[in-house]
Each structure stands twice: as C-alpha cells, then as structure tokens.
C-alpha cells in the first residue's frame, strides 16, 4: 500500500500536462523490411523505448521544447536527429537504417547482427507486459500464436510451443543462462523463476533452427530482463509499477533504480506479488493463491571502449503457492541466479563481437501436502536442490555480406531430492524417506557455428550446426520399504551421447512486398533429469507413477517451416506459416509389469517407464495480420493450429483401478495439444494519442482430437473478450487498466490439468478488473 500511495504522490508532483508526440517507423535501408526491437532514445528526459513488431515507436505526453532522438540497432549505423516540438505538435518519422555494426550502449548480450531470420520468431515487448495483468512469463506467453501453457495452479504456467513442451523447449534467460526447476511435477518451470515485471522482452524462436542458443528441439524461449546500462555522464533513474487485480485480490509492486556513468553503472530491482484464490466464471473458488518476492542487483563496468562487463545477482522467493491439479503445493522456493557477462563489439574488424557468459542457478524447492485432506494421516514433505552451472562464448566474425558465429556452451545440471513421509497417526511417529533423485547430474558440452549470408538484394540464407557431448550419471536409483528392503534398485545409471543438430534456411524477396522464408532443421535433445532418473512419482499427464530410464536415447526432431510474408502500405502486413515436424525416438511412458516394480502413489494405475518409441508427427499453421501503423486506429488478427499424431501406441485398459488389458491404438492424437485459436485485437488513439483503448476478442475451438491412449478428455470451445485502456499522463506517469473476461465466461484451456484425483476441470479466472500504474523518471 505504501508503494501505491508513494506512486500516486510522485505522479501528482510530476503531473505537468502536455500533448506533444513523436512517433515513427524504422526500416532497413538495404532490405526495406521493418526493424523491430531497435532502441529509440529521446533527450532531454532520457526516455527510451524499442520498436515493436511492426517497427514502430512513439513517445507521448511530451512538453514543448528542443529534443534529440537517437536510434540504435545492432548491425546498423546509428541515427540522430535534433528538432523542436511545439505545444501539441505531432511529429512522425520514417527512418531507414544502414547496415553497419557500430556500437551499442550498455551490455545487450543478445546479438541480432542481421535482422532477418527464415523461421518464426515472436517478440513480446515490455510495454505490452506492463499494460496487462501479467503474473508470470508462462501465462503471458499464452498470448502468442501457437504458444499455450499447462496450468496446474494460480501461477507458474509451463509453456507449450506448437505442442512441444518441458525439455523439448529450450527456456533460458538473458541469452544463455539456464535454470533447472526443482519440482518433479514442474510446479516451477524455468520461466517461473523470472519475474515477469523484470522482463524487457521475450523472444520465442519456433522450431529446431536457432542452434546458437543451446540444444534446440521444439523452440527457444529467451526471457531478457532489464539491464544496467551506462550513461554519458552520471545519472540516476528509477521506475516503479504498482498493479492491482480484482477477483483474486492480486497486487504487485515493481521498483527499479539504475544509474552510473560511462565506466561504472548499476541497477537495483525489487518485486513483490501477492494473489489470493480466484473465482471462475461459474462461481467456483479455485485454490490458487501465491506469494512471491525477489530482488536483484547488477554492476556494469566498461574498462575500455567496446568492452563491457556485467555482473548480476538475483535472489527470488516463492511461498505458499497452491496447485489444485497436483498432489502437493509449493511451500517455499528459494532461488539464486548469478552471472558474469562480457561483451565486445567492434564492427570494422573481422572479429566483430565476443559474447561470453558464466552463470550459476540454484533452486531450492520445498513442497508438501499440508493443505490436503490426506495430511491428517501422512504429512509428506519433498525438498529438492536443483543447480545448473555453465557458460557460453560466442565469437562473431564477418563483414557487410556475411556473419559467422562460432562458439561453445556448457552446462552442468545437478539434482538431488527426497520425500519424507511422516505417518502422524501412528505411535512413535514413523518417518519414511524416499529418494526422488540421488545426486543425479547431466553435463552437456556443445559447439556451434552459424553462417548467415546476404547473397544479393533478393536472397539471404543461413546454415548452422551444433555438436553436443552429453554425459549423465546418478547414484543408484533406489527405493526401500519401511523395513529397509529394496523395492527398486538400478545402478546402471551412466549414459554418454554425441548429438549432431543442423539447420538451414533462406529468405527470398520477390519484390518489396512479398517474400518467402523456408527453413529445414534437425534438432536433437538428450533426455532430461526426470526422463532419466525420476524414481516413481506421478509426473506425467496420465494416472501412473513414472520411472526414469538412464538408458534412454536422445529424441530427434526433423522439421520444415514455410512462411509467406506480404507487406502493403494500405493492407498492412500478412504472414502465413505452415510447419511439419517428424519426431523420431519420441520419449513417452510405457507400462512396466507389477512384478518388476510396484507403484508408490495411492490411486495410480501402475508404473510407466520412459522409453523411446519410433516416431510421431506434429503439423500446423500460424496466420498473422497487422494493420498499417500510419492510422490512429489499428487491428491485428492471428490464428493458429497444431495437431500431433502417434502412428501406433499401446492403450492400457483399466477397471476398478487395475490395468486388466491392453490394445494397440493406431493414429492416436498426441496428448496436450491446444486447439485452433483465433485472436482479434483492435485499438484507437484519442486525445492526441495519449489515450489508447483496445479490445481483444479470443475464440478457441473445442478440442476433440484427444489421445485415447492417455485417457485424455475433450474440452469445449469458448469465447472471451477483454478491454484495455492505457493513458499517458505525461513523460513520468502512465496507467493501464481494463477488464479481462468481461462476460465472466466459465472456461478452461485444454492444457489445464484436471483437479487432482478427479476429472473436474481447473477453470480459468472469471471477470477481472485490473489497474497498473507506472512511474518513470
């Protein structure tokens, strides 16, 4: 509450009203394509923003006066212009940036030397995140076409991209830092350890093509947080966000302070989120409350021109996070993330850039069943320590026509955890301890190379390759009964793989309006910690205890993407993509006979062990249309669809909680694939572009393509609507508010897990009124 009062107080002090505006669109001079994520700085005021997905930017609520605008984009010459704005002036710019890697301010580790990529890449920017009721990155990612999420509680939604999920996706932060979640049931996927309010942008690269960023199988999600940045002379700045949501009485606060000079600079950031239980559209109260808080510090040093060092430390905590779809709730999460980054950029030499990073991520996860009825008999507490230490180095060589990246990355994952069962109704309080992981480790050393070439004004192409040496080991996988006798024992836990991934793509421009992108790739991923070493826990979609298999083979994804792009001054931008993926050595669960191992979880049907099967297929499309940006109104329309198929799978037939038979199912749909979805957004600008209402209509089809083998249930289609209103008071203060799920529709996503022990759906929140207030100075 103090932060809220403080914010309003500050805003009141700074609320000098004015209505001038500058906006513009950035293009590549060579290709004519728009440039998204170009950095745009405006002084005085030290205002900064990045161009959006259609290359546009704007600063609103400016006072009359002299200004200087600076536009920077890696791989392009900088652009500067001085001008005067009168009271009420609206200046519009069209800027064409020339290719030429010069310099970048600060330590932006993500390197996009060439704007084009022949595969699908979505970018979510900070302004969008700030204007909506974002709670965690996974939830926010669901806005993007063909990106869904698995909900098990109020937060920590696990992203799914084109049907690929879990370790089929390479989720990382700040281009290279990996996080190993602690929970075997993925209460805390990697994305959940990054506070959504710290994110400056999210990049989603679909397919097995971006091989520079680690093992790429189904896609790469890169969560880039706000960075400390240098200033010409010493400056100090701060920004704050205070947000409130009705329904589950959610409130969040974000405070960031940054400053420094050209040599030394810093950032201090803190976040706090507290949400209660939400009410679904049908009035059902969902136990979904959670609390999170975190703080981080960054120190940047520029010892010499073109050389930057950045040290980063983050400490984050979660408490009492409800998961009604899981057998336990997260009691505590204590996570530390640290990294040291080095960045060098010198455009006029053969060696144009060096990016180096070392990092350490440590997740301490504790979960229990203390909020569940069964805790009257047995109190079960699981504690897991999950660590990931590693680094990467990336050398960028090239000239105006080509760019070659070569480098290496390494990660060392360690995981150890136990479940302690206290039998609290029995004399002498017996305690049973079970291993979830036993000092399990995976080391992966990767070498990569990527070559991009602009052949001529029409053709650009890229080829990349990656070699991974993957090694895993664990103490014996062992489960004992109360008498100390082995119920399961496996000491054959070592494995060693060499994986080769390759991808290639091209962009061909028929004219200034029409182009095609084509990409082909083979991504290989080694099995993860759960697939290799988990010891009898119900971690899958179905009702079985799962057993890790150290002898699993890597999974391979052979994929092709074809994208047609059309751009027109009056019609806007159109993009239509189709993809086809052929997954071999697909990893799935196969039932193990009870004579080999008995299940340990009450109510499950048996034990499944992770195994490789022949192959599966995924295919689908994405359609996107963005209206021209030159009008004071605009709209976008997206549609996406994915289907997955398993040519042959075993279905186990259960009766009265026992498996009694099995049968082969042909062409069974893959489970947990989201249905067809269409999104329509429309917005207008009023009052000299300071006020922007936007409506969002979302239509999701029913999902009847369900897996018979996994006893998946169909879901009904639904329609939701939302309104967002954003208002820029002045250069210091802005607000965004609105209503989501206006009609209080009771609905649930197909990927929402069911309430534990039942087939009851986990509904999404009903109507929510929200308000975010942002202060920057």
């Amino acid at each position, binding site marked *: 509450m103090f932060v809220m009062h403080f914010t309003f107080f500050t805003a009141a002090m700074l609320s000098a009203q004015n209505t001038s505006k500058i906006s513009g669109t950035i293009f590549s001079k060579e290709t004519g394509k728009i440039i998204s994520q170009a950095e745009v700085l405006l002084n005085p005021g030290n205002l900064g923003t990045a161009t959006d997905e259609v290359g546009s930017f704007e600063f609103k609520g400016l006072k009359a006066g002299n200004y200087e605008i600076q536009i920077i984009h890696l791989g392009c010459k900088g652009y500067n212009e001085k001008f005067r704005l009168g009271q009420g002036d609206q200046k519009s710019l069209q800027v064409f940036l020339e290719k030429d890697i010069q310099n970048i301010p600060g330590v932006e580790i993500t390197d996009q030397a060439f704007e084009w990529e022949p595969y699908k890449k979505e970018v979510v920017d900070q302004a969008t995140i700030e204007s909506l009721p974002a709670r965690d990155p996974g939830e926010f990612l669901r806005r993007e076409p063909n990106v869904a999420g698995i909900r098990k509680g109020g937060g920590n939604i696990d992203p799914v991209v084109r049907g690929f999920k879990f370790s089929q996706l390479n989720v990382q932060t700040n281009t290279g830092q990996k996080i190993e979640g602690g929970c075997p049931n993925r209460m805390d996927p990697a994305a959940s350890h990054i506070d959504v309010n710290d994110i400056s942008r999210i990049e989603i690269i679909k397919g097995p093509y971006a091989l520079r960023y680690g093992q790429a199988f189904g896609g790469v999600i890169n969560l880039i947080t706000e960075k400390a940045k240098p200033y010409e002379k010493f400056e100090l700045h701060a920004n704050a966000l205070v947000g409130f949501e009705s329904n589950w009485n959610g409130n969040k606060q974000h405070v960031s302070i940054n400053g420094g000079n050209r040599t030394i600079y810093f950032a201090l950031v803190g976040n706090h989120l507290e949400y209660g239980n939400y009410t679904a559209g049908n009035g059902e109260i969902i136990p979904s409350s959670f609390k999170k808080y975190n703080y981080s510090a960054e120190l940047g040093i520029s010892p010499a021109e073109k050389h930057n060092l950045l040290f980063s430390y983050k400490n984050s*905590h979660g408490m009492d996070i409800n998961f009604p779809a899981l057998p336990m709730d997260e009691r505590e999460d204590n996570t530390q993330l640290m990294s040291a980054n080095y960045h060098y950029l010198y455009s006029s030499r053969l060696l144009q850039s060096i990016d180096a990073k070392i990092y350490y991520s440590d997740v301490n996860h504790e979960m229990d069943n203390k909020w569940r009825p069964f805790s009257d008999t047995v109190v079960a507490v699981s504690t897991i320590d999950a660590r990931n230490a590693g680094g990467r180095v990336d050398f960028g060589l090239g000239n105006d026509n080509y760019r070659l990246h070569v480098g290496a990355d390494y990660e060392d994952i360690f995981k150890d955890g136990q479940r302690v069962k206290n039998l609290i109704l029995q004399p002498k309080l017996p305690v049973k301890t079970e291993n979830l992981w036993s000092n399990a480790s995976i080391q992966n050393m990767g070498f990569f190379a990527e070559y991009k070439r602009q052949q001529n004004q029409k053709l650009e192409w890229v080829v990349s390759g990656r070699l991974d040496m993957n090694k895993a080991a664990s103490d014996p996988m062992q489960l004992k009964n109360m008498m100390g006798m082995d119920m399961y024992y496996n000491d054959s836990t070592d494995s060693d793989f060499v994986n080769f991934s390759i991808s290639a793509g091209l962009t061909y421009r028929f004219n200034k309006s029409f182009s095609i992108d084509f990409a082909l790739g083979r991504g290989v991923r080694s099995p993860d910690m759960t697939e290799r070493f988990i010891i009898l826990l119900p971690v899958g979609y179905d009702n079985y205890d799962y057993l890790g298999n150290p002898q699993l083979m890597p999974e391979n994804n052979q994929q092709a993407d074809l994208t047609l792009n059309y751009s027109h001054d009056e019609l806007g931008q159109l993009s239509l993509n189709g993809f086809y993926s052929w997954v071999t050595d697909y990893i799935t669960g196969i039932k193990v006979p009870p004579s080999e191992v008995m299940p340990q979880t009450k109510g499950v049907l048996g034990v499944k062990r992770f195994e490789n099967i022949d192959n599966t297929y995924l295919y689908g499309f994405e359609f996107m249309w963005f209206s021209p940006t030159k009008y004071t109104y605009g709209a976008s329309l997206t549609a996406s669809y994915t289907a997955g198929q398993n040519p042959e799978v075993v279905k186990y037939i259960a009766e009265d909680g026992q498996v009694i038979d099995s049968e082969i199912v042909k062409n069974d749909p893959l489970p947990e694939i989201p249905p067809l979805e269409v999104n329509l957004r429309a917005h207008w600008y009023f009052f000299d572009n300071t006020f922007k209402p936007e409506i969002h209509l979302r239509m999701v089809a029913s999902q009847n393509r369900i897996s018979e083998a996994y006893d998946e249930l169909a879901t009904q289609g639904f329609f939701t609507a939302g309104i967002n209103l954003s208002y820029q008071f002045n250069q210091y203060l802005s607000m965004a508010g609105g209503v989501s799920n206006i009609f209080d529709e009771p609905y649930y996503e197909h990927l929402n897990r069911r309430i534990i022990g039942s087939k009851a759906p986990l509904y999404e929140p009903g109507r929510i009124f929200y308000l975010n207030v942002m202060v920057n100075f």
Partner: protein
Amino acid sequence: METRYIIITILAVIIFSSCEKREEKSVKYITTNAISDYDLSYRLPSGELKTETIAATSMQDQWSFSFLAEQGDIVYVSGNYKDINSALNIRILVDGKVYKQGSSIGDTVRFVTVSGVVPYD
C-alpha cells in the same frame, strides 16, 4: 534534483524490505485424566521425537509443554498407559485454542495419538 535522490532512497528501502516471514504461533501440548504413570512421545520444535514416562497420581494432574512453532510445523503427541483403571486425554492448543484432542479410558492397548500441522490461517 535533491527530491529525486530522496525519492530514489525511499524506493531502495522498499526493495530490500519486501521479504516475507511466516507467522509464528504458540503451541501447547496438555495431557490430563491419567491416575498412574504413562508413556508419552511428543515432537519437539527441533523435529525430534522425545519419549518419557510421565508421573501421575490423580486425574487432575496435568502435564504440559509449550513452544513457538511456524505455520505448517508438525505437532504430535502420542501416549499409552498400562493401568486398566487409568485414562488419558491429550490436547494440542494453538494460540490458546484447542486445535486437536483425543482420549481413551481403560484402553491399555491403543495409543492415544493427537497430531496435525500448525494451521496457516
């Protein structure tokens, strides 16, 4: 300019005071109704289980043990007597209110076990 520095200092204080702590509650184990010695096991705040023989001569004799516990901590008391004429009542109080209780009369075989976790509300 000075106002800006003051504001930034206040923001910095907010950042580093945003941590959360779990609430502590007072817990009290109470046993009564026994007329002769009985064996009692109870969980200590450290998590260890302590077992001792409690001396009793009349139903009014009361044994108690108090401590502070965090929400979610396991509380556990289990007792058993060998005198067929005896009885045992066990109560666990959280913040002065009875959280759980159990008793037996003349049952020398069955243990009276009262347990749970300190509530979160």
